[in-house]
């Protein structure tokens, strides 16, 4: 029985957002001979949901960035529109509520630069204009980043047209924020999103911080009506409609390489599939140490690269269905960031190297952005911390379930302490995810969800400039949180498109040289 063709132009490993977006981008440029192999039995990777007792529960998505309103579509929103992927987006009501009890800070910010500046001004009179100025700087850097990622430009031209981007590129978020002279409370209030790029502010490039702030505060953030699974399913459906072959329950074990060039893949089932290009969702750490066959084809530089770079965060998340409405329970906000102990992100980072108790938490009540997400009279609620993997490396199988429960209990108690809201008496369903959960379902290296640290010494700008240096095997491109744009579902789409573009460019280059040589002949 033959389940695959003898050859595909492109095999995509992983049917998550990056892989599916890569397929759509390839198809836009007429590359249609595509096979997508997904380990799990559904698409989306972490962009997924699950059902417990008939209730569908969002697995991961807090806020989808880079979508924008219908009137002011942002990058990812534009791409989905262009591809004909029509997602029922719901706007998240606020950016966030930030609570830092020790300093008495409790503030809710909404999207819109002026709106949020005014909200800060209302509590810290006189600071609104300065905050607005700061957000406008973030927005200029954001616009430049979006332009420059698709339009290469000489350094002098860059300095002329994108001065703020160029001048802030070499600094951390802290270094640039410090030039504004904000009081510490305002700095704390502008900091919560740091966790969504998984790096403390002292080593987080301002470029990345600015991108995040401008994207979320400019257009607000969105969630799909039918959970993140809607996004995954509609991307898959479109890729299939355009002619891609998608196969589930197929884990790729080996990427076959000969003379420095990709020749195909082998699945766990044993199928050998030939192809010209592989777009890979697996982490480079795994690819270069386990998957390339033969391993002798892995250049020394690739090993130094994966060993030198630092993995970013993973997840510790408690997802619950509660037996009452958000209103009755007293949950007022879609998204609360709570800093129970400190907002010093270096200190929170140190705590993230342990297994808790965690004090910096993000809590989400999906029903407040998506009414009806949970059956009537109930709501779904999650509490998340994004720790480093270090604390989990020595976990024993025998202790795993007790460990998960202890961690979840501590997170619930911390939320209850900060909010004064009783959660534990209302739990109807509960699931806890850890790095082990991630490794099980999507196979990500060490349960990582955010790729490599967005630190100043692994800056996205530097990644872009070193693109050629980081390319070790002909025909092999990477698409996932581990790629240039880094983590998050919005950047996942961008990463997938970038990988596709590398393939498209290479195909064009080869076609040109083949055409050229023909002419010569």
């Amino acid at each position, binding site marked *: *029985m033959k*389940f695959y063709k003898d050859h595909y132009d492109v095999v995509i490993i992983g049917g998550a957002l990056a892989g599916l977006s890569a397929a759509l981008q390839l198809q836009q440029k007429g590359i249609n001979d595509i096979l997508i192999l997904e380990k799990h039995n559904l698409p989306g990777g972490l962009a997924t949901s*699950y*059902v417990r007792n*008939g209730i569908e529960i969002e697995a991961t998505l807090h806020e989808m960035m880079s979508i924008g309103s219908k009137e002011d579509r942002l990058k990812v929103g534009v791409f989905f529109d262009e591809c004909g992927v029509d997602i029922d987006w719901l706007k998240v009501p606020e950016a966030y509520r930030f609570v830092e009890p020790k300093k008495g800070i409790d503030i809710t910010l909404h999207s819109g630069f002026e709106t949020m500046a005014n909200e800060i001004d209302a509590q810290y009179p006189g600071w609104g204009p300065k905050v607005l100025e700061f957000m406008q700087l973030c927005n200029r850097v954001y616009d430049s980043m979006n332009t420059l990622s698709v339009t290469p430009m000489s*350094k002098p031209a860059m300095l002329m047209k994108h*001065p*703020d981007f*160029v*001048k*802030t*590129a*070499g*600094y951390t978020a802290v270094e640039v924020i410090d*030039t504004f002279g904000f009081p510490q409370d305002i700095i704390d209030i502008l900091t919560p999103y740091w966790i969504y790029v998984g790096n403390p502010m002292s080593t987080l*490039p301002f470029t990345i911080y600015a991108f995040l702030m401008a994207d979320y505060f400019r257009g607000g953030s969105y969630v799909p009506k*039918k959970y993140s*699974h*809607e996004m995954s399913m*509609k991307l898959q459906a479109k890729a299939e409609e355009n002619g891609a*072959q998608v*196969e589930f*329950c*197929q884990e790729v074990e080996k990427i076959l390489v000969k003379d420095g060039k990709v020749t195909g893949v082998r699945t766990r*089932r044993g199928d050998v599939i030939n192809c010209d290009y592989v777009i890979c969702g697996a982490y480079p*750490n795994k690819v270069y*140490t386990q998957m390339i066959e033969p391993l002798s084809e*892995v250049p020394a*530089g690739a*090993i*130094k690269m*994966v060993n*030198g*770079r630092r993995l970013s965060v*993973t997840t510790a998340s408690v997802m619950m269905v509660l037996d009452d409405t958000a209103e009755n329970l007293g949950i007022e906000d879609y998204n609360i960031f709570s800093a129970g102990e400190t907002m010093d992100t270096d200190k929170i980072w140190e705590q993230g190297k342990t297994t808790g108790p965690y004090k910096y938490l993000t809590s989400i009540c999906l029903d407040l952005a998506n009414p009806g997400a949970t059956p009537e009279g109930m709501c779904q609620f999650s509490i998340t911390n994004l720790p480093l993997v270090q604390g989990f*490396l*020595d976990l024993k*199988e*025998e202790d*795993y*379930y007790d460990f998960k429960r202890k961690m979840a209990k501590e997170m*619930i108690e911390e939320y209850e302490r900060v909010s004064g809201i009783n959660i534990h*008496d*209302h739990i*109807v369903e*509960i699931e806890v995810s850890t*790095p*082990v959960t991630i*490794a*099980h379902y999507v*196979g990500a290296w060490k*349960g990582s969800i955010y790729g490599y640290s967005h630190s*100043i*010494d*692994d*800056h996205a*700008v*530097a990644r872009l*400039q*070193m693109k050629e240096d980081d390319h070790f095997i002909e025909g092999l491109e990477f698409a996932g949180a581990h790629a240039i744009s880094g983590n998050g579902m919005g950047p996942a789409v961008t990463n997938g498109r970038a990988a596709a573009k590398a393939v498209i460019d290479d195909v064009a280059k080869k076609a040109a040289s083949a055409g050229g040589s023909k002419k010569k002949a």
Partner: protein
Amino acid sequence: MKVKGFLKDVGGASRVTKMRQELIASGSPIPDPKDPIRELADLLHPGKQQFTVTEIREASPTATTYRLSPVNGHVPVFQSGQYVNFYLTVGDSVLTRAYSISSAPYEARLAEPYFEVTIRHNVHYLVPDWFLDNVKVGTEITAALPFGQFLYEPLRDSDHIVGIAGGSGITPFASMAKEIAHGKLDIDLTIIYGSVKHTDIVCGYELEEARKVAPDKIHVVHVMSDDDEWDGEKGFVTREIIEKYAAKFAGFTKDTNAAHGPSFFFCGPPVMFFLIDKIMKEMGVPMKRFRHDATAQPAVKLIPGFPMDQVGKTYKMTVVRGIHEDVIDAAADEPVAVSLERAAIPIDTHCRGGECGYCRTQLLSGDIFVSPLNDGRRAMDKELGWFHACSAYPTSDLKIKIPII
């Protein structure tokens, strides 16, 4: 914009590139393929494993217990109430069949680990008596475990569980009772167990042994529906019986606050589930306090809304796997998964009740009826035509796509 002076500012991009080059140069040249997190994930969820049957014993005159020992020496950690999925070779077909684990979790952590399942005789689970007829001590069987969410969750459940069981639905509670008696599970358990005759009681010996060890924590009430010799509770498991023993042993009162009353757990045949579900509602047991095991889909006449005019019809089903297609017969009154099994096309079902989604299948064309019992489909799957093959029935010729196994 000025951060630290023009020259330093404009040199930023070159500076960060140099930093990154240095970071990578600092990396060790020695490959490090070790991923302890994936290793742990694989220990917890090893997928298919080989087991050897090392003991067979009578669990009642009408049920047999099989002990399975892992060929590689490792049974993944499981929790009482979870199930194992067997891959049984019958003719050309590999059938997937799920059974609750009847042994206790601690038994899988012994120096010579094992787990057990207890199977009723002559229960047509498409392969009636396959175990009884085929399995001897020494037989090797492929199985995967653990699965399912029917388990005590301390973050949600009361530490007093009232377990209501019918027939072989006792097995999760037998596992719990043994774990409690062993001191590994610190909860109280009141079991209300319905059987036809006392000779039908499954795992009766294990239950009694566990009760003797922990008489304050474990209570067992047998209810016989048709047994003249029985001098205990008789008839079906009724609201009166449940209330009586839940009050006596678990402090249940009608005004018990949702958060503080006992948790009711049910495992048993679908017909009994309908009854117990109704009783729970009548008793005012809140959703938080009632859990039930996922059971296999019952015969179609018991499925609410099933189009009975379809019974007896057969449709053509085109099955797509990769670029390969087969056309097979599909009976209208059997789940799509069963038609695949009959045609020896492998499909990885687990719960067989619609809930778990392992047999998630793409509908390319045609119409199906999906059982409303334990419908575990995601909203977007419903909209785009994806369904669970174990609980969907053809109502026209079909074209479906399933994973290549």
